[in-house]
C-alpha cells in the first residue's frame, strides 16, 4: 500500500500571516496539536506545533541549567505569552520539515516517523506543493487493514 491511498487530501493549514495566539486558538478548536504552514503557491513553509509555542515561552536555558523545580511562574513567561499575539507564526515555526511523497510505501513512512520522531508527515509533490498529510494513526490503521484486522473507524 502507498501513502497516496491513505493520506488526508484536504489538508488543514496555517496562514503564514497569522499570529501565534490565533493559531493556538485554531489548534484548540480543531483539537490538533500541530499544522503545516503553506504559502499562496501551495508550497510548504514549515510546521507549527503546541510544543513550538511552549519552547518559545519557556527560557531557552532551562535545558542547560540541569535539574531544578519551578516553585513559582517567572514573570518573563507571562510577558512572553502576551507577546504571542504580536508574533507571526512564521517567526517561531520549524522550517526544517521532514516530508514524504505519494509514492512512498507505508513502512518507509513509518520508518521516517520513527527515526525522525515525527507525529505526522506532510506529503509533497515534485514541485514541493503540499498534496496531503499522513499521521501515525493513518499508518497504523492501514497496517491493521493489511493484516486483515480493524482498529475501528
Amino acid at each position, binding site marked *: 500500500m502507498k501513502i497516496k491511498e491513505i493520506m488526508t487530501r484536504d489538508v488543514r493549514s496555517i496562514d503564514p500571516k497569522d499570529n501565534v495566539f490565533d493559531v493556538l486558538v485554531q489548534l484548540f478548536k480543531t483539537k490538533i496539536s500541530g499544522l503545516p504552514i503553506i504559502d499562496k503557491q501551495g508550497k510548504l513553509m514549515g510546521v507549527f506545533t503546541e510544543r513550538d509555542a511552549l519552547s518559545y515561552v519557556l527560557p531557552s536555558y532551562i535545558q542547560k541549567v540541569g*535539574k*531544578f523545580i519551578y516553585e513559582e511562574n517567572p514573570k518573563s513567561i507571562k510577558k512572553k505569552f502576551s507577546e504571542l499575539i504580536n508574533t507571526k507564526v512564521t517567526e517561531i515555526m520549524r522550517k526544517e520539515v521532514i516530508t514524504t511523497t505519494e509514492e512512498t510505501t507505508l513502512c518507509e513512512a513509518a520508518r521516517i516517523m520513527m527515526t525522525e520522531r515525527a507525529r505526522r508527515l506532510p506529503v509533497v509533490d515534485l514541485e514541493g506543493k503540499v498534496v496531503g498529510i499522513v499521521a501515525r494513526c493513518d499508518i497504523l490503521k492501514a497496517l491493521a487493514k493489511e493484516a486483515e484486522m480493524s482498529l475501528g473507524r
Partner: protein
Amino acid sequence: MWKKLPILIALSIGFGILARNTGLSSHQALSISIFSASILGTLFFWDFRLSFAFIGVSILLISKAIDLENVVRFASLEVILFLVGMMILVGLLKDSGFFAWLIGLILRIKNLNSDKFFIAISFISALLACVVDEVTSIVFVVAAVLEICDYFEVDPTPFLITSILATNIGSSGTVLGNPIGILIAAKSGLTFEDFLVKAFPLMILSLLVAIFVLKFWYRKALADLDKKIKEFGYNEMLVKLVSVPPERDLKVSLAIFAATLFFIAIHRRLELFWGLQPNTVLLTMPLISSGLVMIWKRTKARKYVEKDVEWWTLLFFMLLFAQAGTLKFTGATDVLAKNLLGLANNSVSMLMSIVLWVSAIGSSVLDNVVLVAAFIPIIQSFHDLNINLQPLWWALLFGGCFGGNITMVGSTANIVALGILEKERGVRLSFFRWFWVGLTVGLITTSIVWLALVFLPFFG
C-alpha cells in the same frame, strides 16, 4: 564561503612563501602555512573548524612534515582526558541541581540593592568560572541575571555584559577556568598551587578594578535598578522561584567535586610524596572522580560521556595541538623564537610584553586556545635560549583570558551569553556597544597584569 576561501588559501600560501624566503626549510614553511590555514579557518569558517583541522593534519602527515608518532605525542591526550573528566563531573553537577542551587542563591540575596547585585554577580561569575569552565558558568549566571532583571523590569544588558567580563577575568584564576589554563599548566610545569598563589590574587585585583570601572560605566543602569527595587519592594517571588531535588544527590555530588578540587589543588605535593611524574595527580584526579561517578550513576554514565563531553571541541583541540606541535617538530618555532628574542633586544620584560599584548589582542578576534596553542611551542623554544619562562607563561595566560573581553566574539562565553540574550529578549548588541566597554576593561586589566609582571619579581 566561496569569497573567503581564496583569501584563506592566498594568505596561508603567502605565509609559507614568506617563511621559506626568510630562510626556513620547506617543512618548516609548510607547517607554518598549514597552521595559519587552520587559524584563519577558525576565524573565517568557525562551523568548519574541525574539517580544517582534519585536513590540515592529514596534509602535514602526507607531506612528511611530521610523523604519526609525533602527531599522537603533540595531540596532548593528557590535556584532553583532563577536560573529558572535568566535563563529566560538570554533567553530574548539572544533574544534581548544583547550578540551579547557585541561581537560587543569587535570587535569594537579602535586602537586594543594585550595588549588592552588581558585586554579587561579578564575584559569582568570576569564582564560578574558576572552578568550572567559563562556558558552563556563564549560562547559569545569565539565567539568574535575566530572572532578576525581568522581575524588576530593567534592561538586563549592562548586567549581562558585566557578568561576561567578570567571567573572562575569573577564568584566569585557576587551572580549571579555561582550557588554556590546563594547557599552560601541562606544558609549563606550573602547578595548581602556583596558579592559586600567583594567578588568583592578580585575577582578584583585576576583577576589583573592573568592577569599579563598570560601576561607573553603568551608573545610570544601577540607579534605574535601585529605583525599581524601591518601587517593587522585596524580591519575595524570586526567593522561592526555584528549588532543587533531591538534596542527597546534591550533597554527594558536591562532596565528590570538592574532593576532586582538593586533590587537584595539592597535586604537586602528592606527586612528590608518591614519587610520581609531574602532573600525574593533576591529570588523573578528574578521571578517578568521573570514573567513580560513572559507577554511582551507572544508568547515566553513557549520557555523561556522550552528551556532556564536547567531543567536537576536544577533537578540534587535539588536532590543533598536533598542528602547533609540528611547528616545534620541524624547528620552525626555534627560528621564530630567535627572531622574537632579537626583536625584544634580548630582554625578558620586553618579550613578556610582546607575548601579553599580542595574545590579548589576538584572542580578541581568535579563539584563545588557538592562539595559546600557537604560542606554546614558541615559548618552549625560548627554554633552549636560557630565558626565564615563568613571566611568559603568565603573560600568555592573562593575555589569552583578558583579551577575550575586548570584542563580543573574543571568547566562547561572550558568544554563548549574547546568544541567550538575543534569543530570550530579542536584544541584538551592536559591535560598538560591546567594544567600548570591553576595550576599556580589557586594556585596564591587561595593563594591571603588565605592571605586575614587569615590576613584581614574585612572578619571575
